[in-house]
């Protein structure tokens, strides 16, 4: 088996992504009209039509067997295609190249199937319902909007580093003591009272959520957008040195460190044009279009959402700036101080004893001691990717039944992986205890549950 050839590794990568609606071009010769968005643009027109045609055929074929549950994915030797009917007749398709290890005469480890699901959801936040947009401005408007959004969004996809945490799409909550939490609550209340235009607010610290007035599903999507797209784009200037040209303009404004992440980059410039991104929330029953104002001071960030019908002018922004800026700055340093005090009490953070991932489906809270750093482009985990895939397998098995279960697995490397599901909570623990047996592993995990999750009942 030894050969001189070097192994080449190809990671999974996005080959193409497109959106179509078969109703738009039902007759022969009109196929091109079905395509609402196609990436990469350079693909020849006929090939686009063929690819869309294949998707349609596959969906229809599977309807033969189950009219209400058509195909979700197609696997071929070279790639995988994922289908998602975002709304009735609007289909999104993502084509991913299979990861391959090129050895002489051998190929392909299959990738995990999980990671594609999350990508689909985020778009809904920004596009509202496709049908609404269509009514408003016709197909052209829709295609324009799609193009603008997806072009930018697709660049933020990093398929090779997706794992179980992405499947959950949870929210990381920042742990706070009661006093500080109340301070934040009252801050939010005060602002909402003074600025009556504000409909919803969300408060984050250090990329983690503290408080949100939005519906859970909407917040989940907004959180994802903030942490993978908006915040990373703006993080550099804050870290820049004092004399760096990147440093935000704070001349004349030594009262606070607040600034707009969306909207006016520089309030001092009277001619600068600005606008706030619009988002769509509550899209299930009612339909709301809102301006998204994200305002940040140091590591604290607040999102204010205002009805999109309102025109937000410079005056409003200045009012917000002078009201929120100082308070938020103060709050941010309060939180920081409190956090440091707590840390000193609980002791320095050494290597976490247990490697685990916890997710609660009810409040979307997630916690991971496995991910050391999770930014948009990279997800550093302290465990081998194959072990993460085993977590994914266990998660799939859990998803089959709606009961409380426990799965313990011993991997080839003698690592033990324990998965527990109780109510709507899932806990995954990885233990590196090669010589342990089932009983000992069980005891270890019980200890973990007793210390970290003592108010949650997991199966023994």
């Amino acid at each position: 088996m030894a050969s001189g050839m070097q192994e080449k590794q190809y990671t999974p990568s996005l080959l193409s992504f497109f959106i179509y609606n078969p109703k738009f071009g039902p007759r022969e010769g009109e196929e091109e009209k079905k395509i609402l968005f196609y990436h990469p643009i350079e693909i020849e027109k006929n090939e686009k039509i063929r690819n869309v045609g294949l998707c349609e055929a596959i969906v229809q074929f599977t309807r033969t067997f189950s009219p209400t549950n058509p195909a979700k994915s197609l696997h071929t030797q070279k790639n995988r295609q994922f289908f998602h009917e975002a709304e009735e007749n609007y289909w999104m398709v993502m084509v991913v190249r299979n990861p391959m290890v090129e050895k002489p005469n051998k190929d392909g480890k299959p990738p995990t199937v999980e990671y594609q699901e999350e990508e689909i959801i985020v778009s809904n936040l920004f596009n509202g319902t496709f049908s609404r947009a269509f009514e408003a401005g016709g197909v052209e408007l829709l295609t324009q909007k799609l193009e603008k959004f997806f072009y930018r969004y697709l660049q933020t996809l990093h398929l090779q580093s997706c794992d179980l945490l992405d499947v959950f799409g949870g929210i990381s909550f920042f742990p706070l003591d009661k006093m500080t939490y109340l301070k934040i609550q009252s801050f939010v209340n005060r602002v909402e009272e003074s600025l009556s235009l504000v409909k919803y607010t969300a408060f984050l610290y250090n990329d983690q959520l503290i408080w949100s007035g939005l519906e859970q599903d909407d917040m989940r999507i907004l959180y994802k957008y903030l942490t993978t797209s908006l915040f990373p784009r703006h993080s550099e200037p804050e870290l820049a040195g004092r004399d760096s040209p990147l440093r935000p303009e704070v001349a004349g404004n030594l009262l606070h460190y607040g600034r707009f992440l969306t909207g006016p980059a520089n309030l001092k410039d009277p001619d600068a044009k600005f606008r706030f991104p619009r988002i769509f929330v509550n899209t299930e029953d009612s339909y709301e279009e809102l301006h998204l104002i994200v305002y940040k001071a140091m590591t604290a960030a607040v999102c204010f959402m205002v009805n999109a019908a309102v025109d937000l002018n410079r005056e409003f922004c200045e009012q917000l700036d002078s009201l929120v800026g100082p308070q938020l700055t103060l709050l941010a340093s309060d939180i920081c101080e409190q956090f440091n005090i707590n840390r000193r009490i609980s002791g320095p953070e050494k290597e976490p004893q247990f490697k685990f991932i916890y997710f609660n489906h009810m409040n979307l809270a997630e916690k991971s001691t496995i991910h050391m750093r999770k930014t948009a482009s990279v997800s550093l985990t302290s465990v081998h990717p194959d072990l993460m895939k085993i977590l994914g397998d266990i998660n799939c098995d859990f998803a089959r039944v709606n009961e409380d279960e426990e799965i313990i697995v011993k991997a080839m490397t003698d690592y033990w992986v324990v998965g527990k599901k109780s109510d709507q909570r899932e806990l995954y623990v990885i233990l590196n205890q090669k010589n342990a047996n089932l009983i000992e592993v069980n005891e270890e995990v019980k200890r973990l549950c007793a210390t970290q999750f003592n108010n949650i009942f997991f199966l023994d």
Partner: protein
Amino acid sequence: DNMHRSDNRGSWEFQPEDTLTEETGNFPSTLAQANFKIMSESWRQHRKHVFVLSEAGKPIYSRYGNEEALSSTMGVMMALVSFVQAGGNMIQSIFSDEHTVVFLQKGPLVFVSVSATRQSEQQLRRELLHVYHQIVSMLTQASINRIFERRKNFDLRRLLFGSEKVLDGLLDVMDSDPSFMLSAVQCLPLPSSSRDALSHILQKAITPDLVFSFLIANNRLVSVVQEKTVLEDARLKPSDLHLLFNLIRASAFQAGEIWMPICLPLFNHDCYFYAYVAYLDPPECTVCLVLLSTDKEAFYAVAECKRKIEEAFASQNALQWVANTQLYYVDDISVANLRHFLYKPSKVLDHHRQLSQEERIRLLDPYRNMHNRIHSTSRPLKLIYHSAGKETLLAWVTSKFEMFACFTPLVTKKSAISELTKLLRWIKKEEDRLFIFIYAFPLTFQSQPCKRQSVTQNVKK
């Protein structure tokens, strides 16, 4: 009713859309729309559909429904396969919430499985491979390839006429018997002295070109004897044995004897053996003798062997040993929480089971899922312990064995482990009785020395 198996399967006319992809290379959506309407709800409810068609899109077999009526559905399947192929790619599977569709192409034949059983793609593909092999067992791979080379449009149903029940039977048994999942054959437990005596009787009844002799009781293997020179060349795989058993089951004869050609695909997929099959205990017909010869004309000589075997059985009252066989039950081992298990020593063929038929079949689903995880090509495992609502399941693979066990749901880990240990000790003790270790067999043949030649040379097609 068009949807049920009709007697007039023999309609040789086939009117497919000749070109399923138009000149522009587009996939005609009208084609896909068409067959959507004709399927009835009952047809859709079936847990696993299996379709066999030729590369030209001609239907060959459908597990449910008349394959003629399904010809347009099969046409769509073929179009999907060729469409993807045209892009230098190969279609493998389609997943939806309820179904998994798996494609397999072997030579000029295409196999499609549409399954709601939640089995993995690999497991479903392996089942399709078994279906292919069963067809090969009836026709040989060489003739299939040759036929289609000459005529791409050939209707293979002409050669398989009457064999649908063989495929039906195979699919049914794959859904209820864990042997396929484990790639193993179940043996009848016998004290090794009895088994040796039976094998001895088989060994003495020989004739030139007789290569294999099997004794099967109630679908379990009692004894297998193999001609010495053949053993050096190759050993029988469990998969081939399953196909053989299935063919015999499907022929559903009782009294009398059969002489039929059969190809053992994994042993040699291009040539036929000739199988003599007879029950030794009519009218109960539970003990079956199978003698495989490479000589097409050897019927009388082989029948004579059977007669000798019958005589020897009668004189030693051998049938009684088989009848008296104690099927063991879990109670024997006094493990209160253990409900059921499968055990397969590595390198050899066997497993066994208890519980009611229904429960065993139900357990097959979770066993298959664990089997799939434990033997994953990219991330295999050594052990799985799964506590669920209805039961606690365990799967364990070591270098010496592979086992699956089912415990009551509230069993503690301590009890489970201790009962498992007890079980393993018991199995070790009873090893001789439970399993057949093929290469532990003495196999000298007496009388005329056989020329040492490999089986293929001796084949008459």
